[in-house]
């Protein structure tokens, strides 16, 4: 038989005012297994806790019920109390007779009846409580950053500065990401490369940072503190150890390919670095276009390379490394605006996107910073900008606001005015949103000082007329149609999740929203964490962001990762699921619904009919299990049980309150 002690708190008059606490204690003394019951004015006070500790000794109690306030308030207090009194902290149950009783039921008689019920419930449960232990796991003090854009670089620098080794895995041949493509940044108009490239170099030279470019995350196993991560280094065809980045190979390479970095407006070679300041500044061979791979002939790069670094036989290489934390910073893609046939993108070469414009205006871009339109290289005099292309459009695009387009369009109009004197910019908009430091002022300058004309309304059609593009739309403020003959049209297309975001989310076991942006653990209070412990988010992979926001979030994600890595061990939940292997049939339905990937298959051997047979059962990883109990209900046989909230405990509570 158990020896349960019941301690009823008055909470001054908070409880005693509307609940007959003495009667509750008297009734509790009559419950099965209850050997001691008393009441006290403030159970949580020092003397109150002493009452409990003394009673544990005096009455040899092995279980404790405290009837007081909400367990959400004082469960940790009373767990510590009975622990110092010599009991396992999980041998406690609380009856919430304040928030759920005395404060809401003014009728003392009825309130007392309910309070007695709640204590009976707690007493019935506590006799089925078992001592539980928190376990702890070691933490690998190394972080992985997926994506080497500005967010990923910032995260890596911050973690590395805190003294932990960091690996950046970047899909492209160089780090830098989208920010490297951008010419100037709003609202200060400082040159993007001038502030980004030093950071790239910092990252490359930091003793704690390893950059693995032209690589992807292949597989993620393990869990917080101990992720086993397989990274696929794509065949670069250039030996990174031998190459000095002298550039002879790409000067001599005969094959010209549209440059992805220049948004297909310029050319690169088949052996190339995406841009001159690339980090690492060592080329890769684009096997799809390289003559050697296509026809077996050529091989000039190999011949001219002074260090013999070119290696056509190189294959993808898989490396596996353990990490304690992961930060995802994979950035964004541009919306595929081809769904807007009326804007003529793809049909008319002079209809371009914002990122194209960035390359056209960039001094190291394909036009050396002279704004020339793609079709005939004429300098455009009249440019129409169309905003919200794909953003805020439920019918054809995305429902959300991309947050950056209002500002970069204003920036583009400013740059037009600066670079092409006497030019005219027209901007079709739905709203102008400028909620950032100095943003509204910048927009006002664009309108005033730089004379950009803002037209509120949608564009219905873009069609060619001679060498012009006629933009037909509506000025909804004046309520009349407008037509503008433009030399070039720039679409502010939406920021969307990377096309492979869903795959990466599944690899990492994190969730993503309807638009494939990764989901944070809590929109307000845990904005850089995911539901998967040890995986954090930075930058536009979580939702559209501009550079300041991405950098700020990167710092936050780094702080979270550092907080994790700074510990040598991590405590895990005590209330976790447990498998009764003898009952488990190994159907693994539990595995598929576990939100934490905490359930895995395990092969056990047992003797059946005189021979040893193997069979599969579910196995719970205690470090990963967060104790939600979803698996316990999915298991029809009841082979899974949640410690602290077992089937037995809950059924005992049900019976106790129904009596």
């Amino acid at each position, binding site marked *: 038989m158990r020896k349960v002690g019941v301690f009823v708190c008055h909470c001054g008059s908070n409880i005693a005012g509307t609940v007959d606490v003495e009667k509750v204690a008297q009734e509790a003394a009559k419950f099965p297994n209850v050997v001691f019951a008393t009441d006290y004015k403030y159970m949580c006070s020092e003397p109150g806790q002493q009452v409990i500790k003394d009673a544990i000794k005096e009455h040899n109690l092995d279980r404790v019920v405290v009837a007081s306030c909400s367990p959400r308030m004082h469960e940790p207090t009373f767990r510590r109390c009975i622990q110092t009194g010599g009991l396992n902290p999980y041998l406690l149950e609380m009856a919430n007779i304040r928030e759920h009783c005395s404060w809401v039921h003014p009728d003392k008689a009825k309130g007392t009846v309910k309070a007695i019920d709640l204590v009976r419930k707690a007493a019935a449960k506590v006799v089925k409580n078992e001592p539980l232990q928190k376990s702890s796991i070691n933490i690998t003090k190394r972080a992985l950053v997926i994506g080497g854009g500005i967010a990923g670089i910032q995260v890596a620098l911050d973690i590395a500065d805190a003294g932990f080794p960091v690996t950046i895995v970047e899909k492209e041949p160089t780090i830098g990401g989208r920010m490297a493509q951008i010419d100037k940044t709003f609202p200060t108009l400082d040159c993007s490369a001038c502030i980004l490239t030093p950071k790239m170099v910092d990252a490359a030279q930091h003793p704690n940072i390893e950059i693995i470019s032209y690589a992807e995350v292949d597989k993620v196993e393990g869990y917080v503190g101990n992720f086993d991560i397989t990274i696929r280094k794509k065949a670069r065809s250039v030996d990174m150890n031998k190459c000095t980045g002298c550039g002879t190979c790409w000067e001599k390479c005969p094959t010209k390919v549209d440059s992805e970095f220049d948004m297909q407006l310029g050319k690169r070679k088949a052996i190339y670095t995406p841009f001159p300041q690339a980090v690492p500044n060592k080329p890769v061979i684009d096997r799809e276009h390289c003559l050697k791979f296509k026809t077996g002939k050529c091989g000039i790069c190999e011949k001219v390379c002074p260090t013999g670094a070119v290696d056509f036989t190189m294959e993808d290489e898989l490396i596996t490394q353990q990490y304690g934390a992961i930060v995802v910073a994979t950035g964004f893609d541009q919306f595929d605006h081809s769904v807007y046939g009326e804007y003529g993108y793809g049909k008319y070469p002079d209809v371009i996107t914002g990122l194209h414009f960035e390359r056209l205006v960039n001094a190291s871009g394909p036009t050396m910073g002279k704004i020339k339109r793609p079709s005939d290289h004429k300098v455009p005099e009249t440019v129409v900008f169309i905003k919200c292309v794909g953003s805020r459009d439920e019918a054809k695009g995305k429902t959300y606001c991309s947050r950056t387009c209002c500002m970069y369009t204003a920036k583009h109009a400013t740059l037009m005015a600066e670079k092409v004197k006497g030019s005219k910019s027209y901007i079709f908009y739905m709203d102008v949103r400028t909620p950032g430091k100095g943003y509204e002022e910048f927009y006002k300058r664009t309108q005033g000082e730089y004379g950009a004309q803002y037209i509120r309304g949608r564009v219905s059609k873009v069609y060619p007329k001679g060498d012009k593009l006629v933009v037909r739309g509506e000025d909804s403020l004046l309520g009349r149609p407008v037509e503008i003959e433009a030399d070039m049209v720039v679409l502010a297309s939406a920021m969307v999740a990377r096309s492979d975001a869903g795959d990466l989310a599944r690899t990492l076991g994190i969730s993503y929203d*309807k638009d494939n942006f990764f989901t944070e653990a809590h929109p307000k209070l845990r904005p850089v964490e995911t539901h998967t412990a040890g995986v954090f988010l930075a930058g536009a992979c979580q939702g559209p962001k501009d550079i300041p926001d991405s950098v700020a979030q990167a710092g936050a994600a780094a702080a979270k990762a550092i907080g994790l890595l700074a510990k040598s061990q991590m405590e895990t939940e005590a209330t976790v699921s447990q498998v*009764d292997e*003898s*009952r*488990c*049939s*190994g*159907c*693994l*339905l539990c595995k*598929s*619904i576990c939100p934490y990937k905490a359930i895995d298959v395990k092969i056990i051997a047992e003797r*059946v009919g005189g021979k040893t*047979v193997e*069979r*599969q059962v579910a196995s719970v990883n205690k470090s990963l299990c967060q104790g939600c109990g979803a698996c316990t209900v*999915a298991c*029809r*046989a*009841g*082979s899974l049980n949640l410690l602290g909230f077992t*089937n*037995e405990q809950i*059924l005992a509570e049900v019976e106790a309150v129904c009596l």
Partner: protein
Amino acid sequence: MITEKMRDVAKDLLTKGEVNMVIGWEKGTFWYNSTPVFITKAEDVERLVFDEFCTNNLAKYLLDYKTAEGKVAIFVKGCDARAVNRLMQDQQVQRDKVYLLGIPCGGMKEAAPGTQPQATEGLPLVEKCQNCTSPNPVVFDVLLGDQVSVRDTQNRFAAVEKLEALGTDEKYAYWGEMFDKCIRCYACRNVCPACSCRECAFDGNGLNWLGKQNNLQENQMFNITRAMHVAGRCIECGECERVCPMDLPLMAINRKVIKDLNELFGAYEAGMDVENRPPLGQFKLEDPEKFM
């Protein structure tokens, strides 16, 4: 004729040693029943038959040979094949351990004991076949015979709808009368291809999910829980109802669940494939929100 083909293919498989056993049907004591048979020797294949009385779903027998060496061949009608998929989805049967011999099924018939003359014409289809949605096997290694067309199944939920139309107390009275009869022999469970637990929640001496008393309340608990446990996993083979010694209308419970699941969460038929998880094991963000 199917029976000939069955014997040929069974003989071939056993002779070549590709399988160690063939599970099929043989003629029973009376002309109007055919019972399961387990053939391990090539010379016994002549016992195999396929006729209008091969009502038994054979799939559940595979669980008895889970740990056996080599492969087992099994004849599968439409419902048996879905049952095999179900068991594979529950990871109780491995695809490479079974050889599936598909038989398109025109529906099974029944005759009252002692019926003469010995003619199948004019006999009614058994209840479970009348509204069969998948007479053709959905998974097989070889298919014996030609695919048959699906019968009109518009009366599939007729019995359910009739019960749904009753008043609250009338429903309770009806089911009370039914469950009062239940003797909790668990035949429904034992035959069910969705019941694949090693140890049933209702057995064992661990947690008493269910009292041992045979009274209305415990019978209600048993039957409702059974319905929830097979929810989204019932393949409508109707075996539970067929084997019930007390003639409880168990398919009126199972079909109610199927009907509701389809209406609430989109069309789903259990056992059509192995990949698509049962509806209670998945969710959609846009599921109906009736609770608020």
